[in-house]
């Protein structure tokens, strides 16, 4: 296990380095520097600014400085468009918001989807099962950018129950629609995966033995079938996590929740490369970390898996 953890880390670290280097090189491949503008600065001023930010150094020196900043000081440098802010400040504004509703969506999707899948499997070929299967097929075609406007149309414009956007300090009515919009399609996938793995477990020999011993159905399902049927879910959870972080960009734009997605899209539209890179790298790090955790959890839970 320790050996596996170590080997798995050996993949995670170069992955992150590659991500940083690729985004760094991409940024430098872009035409024009951060200080070229419509009204060109006097050559001497431009040279001074470039010298101040180290932009006249050779590329590898800049890359090294950038890497050092991130690794040793967690510093992503200044924003090129918003001159008074650093990338860290911009990310610090949005991250907690994204974290709150993203985390909530993740929990909701896992709990609701998991429950739905298990109930559907236990009550296979009943109306509950058909409902669960129907919902999970339907939700496949309802990604976050489709759910968001439909929810606003229903709950804000037609019924007038919920505010159509804004963050409002994370007050719960403002949270409902973002969480539903973000979690629906993942909830559906989780329900589908849980249902099929639960069905497989329920058809296995040891469950037949448990039933033959005369155990009550409750005990059979909760004590014997539940845990192994959740194993396939683990590897999907890291996929869902990435999807939700990506989807938060849509939520931030459509519901004006003010999370990191707004900063990302605005920086993309304004060509604020350092902010884009910062967010890409931060999210990449989270993604890699989460995939690592999922893999380790998987190896720990399922003793059959040997690496």
């Amino acid at each position, binding site marked *: 296990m320790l050996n596996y953890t170590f080997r798995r880390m050996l993949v995670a670290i170069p*992955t992150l380095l590659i991500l940083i280097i*690729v985004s760094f090189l991409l940024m430098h491949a872009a035409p024009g520097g951060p200080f070229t503008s419509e009204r060109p600065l006097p050559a001497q001023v431009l040279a001074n600014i470039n010298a101040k930010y180290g932009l006249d150094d050779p590329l590898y020196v800049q890359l090294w400085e950038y890497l050092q900043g991130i690794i040793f000081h967690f510093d992503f440098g200044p924003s090129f468009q918003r001159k008074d802010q650093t990338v860290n400040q911009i990310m610090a504004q949005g991250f907690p918001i994204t974290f709150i509703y993203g985390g909530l969506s993740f929990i909701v999707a896992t709990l609701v989807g998991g429950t739905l899948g298990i109930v559907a499997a236990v009550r296979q070929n009943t109306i509950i099962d058909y409902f669960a299967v129907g919902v999970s097929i339907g939700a*496949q075609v309802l990604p976050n*950018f489709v759910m968001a406007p439909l929810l*606003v149309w229903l709950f804000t414009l037609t019924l007038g129950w919920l505010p159509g956007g804004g963050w409002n300090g994370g007050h719960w009515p403002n949270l409902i629609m973002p969480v539903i919009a973000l979690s629906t399609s993942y909830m559906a996938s989780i329900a589908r995966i849980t249902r099929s793995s639960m069905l497989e477990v329920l058809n296995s020999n040891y469950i037949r033995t448990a039933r033959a011993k005369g155990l009550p159905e409750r005990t059979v399902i909760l004590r014997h079938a539940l845990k192994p049927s959740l194993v396939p879910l683990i590897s999907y959870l890291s996929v869902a996590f990435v999807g939700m972080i990506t989807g938060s960009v849509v939520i931030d734009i459509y519901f004006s929740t003010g999370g990191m997605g707004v900063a990302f899209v605005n920086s993309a539209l304004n060509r604020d490369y350092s902010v884009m*890179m910062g*967010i890409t790298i931060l999210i990449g790090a989270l993604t890699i970390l989460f995939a690592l955790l999922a893999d380790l959890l998987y190896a720990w839970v399922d003793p059959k898996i040997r690496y």
Partner: protein
Amino acid sequence: MNTTEVKGRSLWSDARRRFFQNKAAVAGLIALTLIVLISFIGPFFAVWSNEEIDWDVMGSAATLGMPSFASGHYFGTDDLGRDLYSRVLQGTRVSLMVGVIGAGISVLVGTVYGTVAGYVGGRTDQVMMRIVDILMSIPFMFVIILLLVVFGRSIGMLFLGIGLLSWLDMSRIVRGQTLTLKNKEFVEAARATGVSTPTIIRRHIVPNLLGIVAIYATLLVPAMILTESFISFLGLGVQEPLTSWGALISEGAGTIRYDTEWQLIAPLIFFVITLFSFFFIGDGLRDALDPKDR
């Protein structure tokens, strides 16, 4: 002696029969065919082109831009007074093209990569699959957007970005399948009779991969369409006057507060029907071609 030959049933005719017994898959195939036909033939019945602005409607889309046959705007207009019917058909063509080409790239690259890794095996395989592992744990949506911003937004760049991310899954699936095929007796027989490696891959491995590749390719098309729609929804995808489902849904979503719900519904119907069709066809193909269920 009975000399009438028993007519053999090939794998593919069996699969075809199973596929056409699946009602959802056939319905999906019909719906998809209709959507494709409409998107190519529909423009001949359009009164307005996708770039023309109906100046009478511009600015008062909520009252005058309703879907109506009298004005020639079958699906209504958008806020600028552009005909939604023409725009939806045009967006449909772009989205379908992105989906099909994206899936095509992934089939080509993924199959070649996966077959080579699986067949050659050993250290080559390990290195190649490690690379896939590394690429897979990169948040690709953000990298695609980075690419689009740095190199300018164009359909070509979009294809490149989507192509970059799409072949990874395919290569894993193909490699797994190749590993099992490689040890089958008929491959061993071919090797024993001195057939060269490229010929074995071309004649014996790849034809046996076609089934599984077809299944995943069908499921990749909607995945590509979703990716493109996501990017276009954020306004970072295709550029005006071209449009796509994502861009149209985004426009409709943005103006839904002004009682112009048809701007959302029209592209959404095409989007939903197409995705459903692809999922059903993919499931049908899986049932028809997957050797596990035989």
